């Protein structure tokens, strides 16, 4: 033994270091193997439990929703006692309720909400809202906004300005889903541009969850954030706010290209044919992106005549645009020839 120590001592520093490091790495490796197996073991058991519970819940919730002969209160107490006892099980139950909620509407959603309350899940989710872990807060907000369950105001309000973007985004959706008036009030104090993800989820909430009156989107058309302006323009056509057509017509001359494009798109979607003469007069001096949008509009609500009315001298230079123009020309001609065969007179007008 002493011999080994003296041998070790006689080595240069670097060799000593190497030996110590390799021993360290080997032990870490063995520890990792242990952890891999430990994770494997716990995950396997968790998965078995999860599958069993999911099956039980599937049967239970379906019966609770649709079976009139189901003894609700006694079955509920039984389930609560046997299954809703660990945090893991609570999470799975919430998830299952959300899946039902996502697919059903009408009377069933009220029953699901009732079930959520009876099972004592409300308290659990509220405690998550107060948690320090951001992912718990975000998830809890998500649960409440999906099920339209109101949480105490004082718990929600700090989350609107949370440090994590994910929490803020979920808070916005929660407010949107549960507010009765002014669901989009937060837009007025918005600090960052809206991402596409936010816009999609906001639109989804407005269409599917929000119960109040849809706001008039014209109030945000001069918002400093371009993404808010574009979102409002889109929503005008999504919610058929025809009263805003005059505003949209002025936005065609907006100085931002993306706003002009959105305005043209919305008007086209609303089938506002009076838009086309204005577009034809603008065409010559527009950017390629808007030119393409104008061509799309003519394809959507216009006619061959409109296409012929465009001043296309310069567009032959932009090959991509010109190709699109030619394909439109080809499309109109082919539909015209069908009409011609049927004895339609539009061709004469066109030529």
């Amino acid at each position, binding site marked *: 033994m002493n011999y080994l120590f003296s041998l070790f001592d006689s080595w240069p520093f670097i060799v000593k270091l190497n030996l110590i490091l390799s021993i360290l790495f080997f032990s870490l490796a063995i520890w990792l193997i242990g952890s891999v197996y430990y994770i494997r073991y716990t995950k396997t058991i968790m998965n078995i439990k999860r599958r069993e519970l999911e099956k039980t819940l599937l049967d239970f919730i379906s019966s609770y929703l649709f079976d009139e002969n189901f003894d609700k209160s006694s079955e509920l107490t039984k389930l609560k006692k046997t299954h809703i006892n660990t945090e893991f099980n609570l999470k799975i139950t919430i998830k299952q309720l959300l*899946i039902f909620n*996502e697919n059903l509407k009408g009377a069933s959603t009220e029953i699901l909400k009732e079930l959520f309350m009876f099972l004592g899940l409300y308290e659990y989710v509220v405690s998550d809202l107060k948690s320090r872990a951001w992912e718990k807060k975000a998830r809890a907000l998500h649960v409440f906004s999906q099920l339209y369950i109101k949480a105490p105001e004082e718990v929600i309000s700090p989350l609107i300005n949370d440090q994590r973007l994910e929490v803020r985004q979920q808070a916005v959706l929660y407010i949107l889903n549960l507010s009765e008036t002014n669901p989009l009030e937060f837009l007025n104090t918005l600090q960052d541009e809206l991402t596409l993800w936010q816009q999609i989820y906001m639109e989804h909430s407005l269409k599917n969850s929000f119960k109040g009156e849809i706001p008039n989107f014209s109030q945000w058309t001069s918002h400093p954030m371009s993404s808010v302006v574009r979102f409002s323009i889109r929503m005008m056509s999504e919610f058929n706010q025809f009263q805003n057509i005059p505003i949209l017509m002025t936005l065609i001359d907006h100085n931002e290209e993306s706003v002009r494009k959105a305005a043209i798109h919305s008007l086209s979607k609303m089938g506002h044919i009076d838009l086309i003469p204005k577009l034809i007069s603008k065409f010559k001096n527009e950017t390629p992106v808007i030119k393409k949008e104008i061509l799309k509009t003519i394809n959507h609500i216009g006619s061959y005549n409109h296409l012929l009315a465009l001043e296309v001298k310069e567009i032959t230079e932009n090959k991509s645009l010109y190709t699109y123009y030619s394909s439109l020309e080809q499309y109109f001609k082919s539909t015209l020839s069908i009409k011609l065969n049927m004895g339609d007179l539009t061709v004469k007008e066109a030529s």
Partner: protein
Amino acid sequence: MKKRILIIEDNPMVVKSLAFKLIRDGYEVVTAADGRDAMERLKTERFSLILTDLMLPFISGSQLIEYIKKNIPGVPIIVLSTSNQDDIITDAFNMGVDDFITKPFSPNELSLRVRRTLANTN
């Protein structure tokens, strides 16, 4: 004789709810969890109505609809889908489906529309 309905849907929760409701309405219900299974059943069994999702494993809903329209025309089809985009709905009707219900759905309304579709085809 009971009318047979084929439910093609990969979400067990939806299948369960649909089956529950439709069995109580007095139909015989057969379920297929994916497009391949559905195709097998369509080839060998007969149904009075088909209720299908559009996004399915192995074979998509539109491929199934195309097959049904070509090989067993006359069997009414109701689509039950998450999609609610205009073009997807238009495409489905162009392919000849009888009704299009979007998720989330109300089981009562669905049962009503199933009855109406069956009445219309007879």
